[in-house]
């Protein structure tokens, strides 16, 4: 009976955090900061809904949609790269470079959007909506750029053979950071572009 019980226990996969605990503490700190900023945006909107309604009309929801597709696609590629590396399959490196390329669509889209709005006369000082819009999206954009640096480091290390699937800590930590950037955008996009 005891041997049967121990067999069952040993077959149950142990629950483990993907990546380093320190990275996860950093991720939760980042999520807390973004959460407070989002709530600040919602409070400001509830105080002045007309300004926020007019401001949202100046944005292009399709740009936001393309950016979202780019970030989700990059996350999918990163998750697939982690999966392949863990199984010892080839192609992890290629997937990571693809994720960086796909996420660059977001970066280009954001730069285009800022340029377009600036040409129309919108900036941080236009009104409360654009103050929040530029601050929130630029703060997130900086995280995307840092995420792209992290993915580049991972791709180079996987390419050099530093990560071979035996120790997934570094790969999982970097991937988790990237997914956090994506998770934040999943809230930011509808909050700024869609919800009236």
């Amino acid at each position, binding site marked *: 009976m005891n041997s049967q019980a121990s067999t069952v226990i040993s077959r149950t996969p142990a629950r*483990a955090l*993907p990546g380093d605990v320190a990275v996860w503490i950093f991720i*939760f700190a980042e999520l807390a900061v973004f*959460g407070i900023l989002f709530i600040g945006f*919602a409070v400001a909107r509830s105080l002045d809904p007309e300004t926020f309604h007019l401001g949202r009309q100046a944005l292009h*929801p*399709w740009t936001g949609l393309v950016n979202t597709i780019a970030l989700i696609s990059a996350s999918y590629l990163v*998750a697939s790269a982690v999966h392949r590396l863990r199984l010892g399959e080839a192609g992890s490196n290629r997937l990571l470079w693809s994720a960086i390329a796909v996420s660059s669509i977001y970066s280009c889209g954001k730069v285009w959007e800022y340029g377009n709005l600036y040409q129309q006369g919108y900036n941080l000082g236009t009104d409360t909506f654009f103050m929040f819009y530029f601050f929130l999206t630029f703060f997130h954009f900086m995280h995307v750029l840092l995420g792209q640096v992290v993915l580049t480091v991972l791709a180079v290390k996987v390419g050099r053979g530093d990560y071979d699937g035996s120790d997934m800590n570094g790969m999982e930590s970097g991937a988790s950071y990237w997914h956090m950037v994506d998770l934040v955008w999943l809230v930011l996009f*509808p909050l700024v572009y869609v919800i009236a």
Partner: protein
Amino acid sequence: MMGMVYLALMICTALPVLALQAGMGAELLSCLALGLIVVKSVLLTDHFMEMRRAPRAWRFAAQAWAPVVITVIAVLNGAG
């Protein structure tokens, strides 16, 4: 499995924008967008972040972030 999650995330992303273009009412659109954020965040944290294999407390914390933020926003949206 990962491909199915990706497809579901894409559909959940496109729906609010299509609804916006179709001229859906503001209140209904807000409810749809906020509800889909919760679905997408759970899919992302569980499958892409691989939190379904994490200790329960960590998994709960990761999954709860978006619903908590969305709930506060929804309350403020309703109050506004």
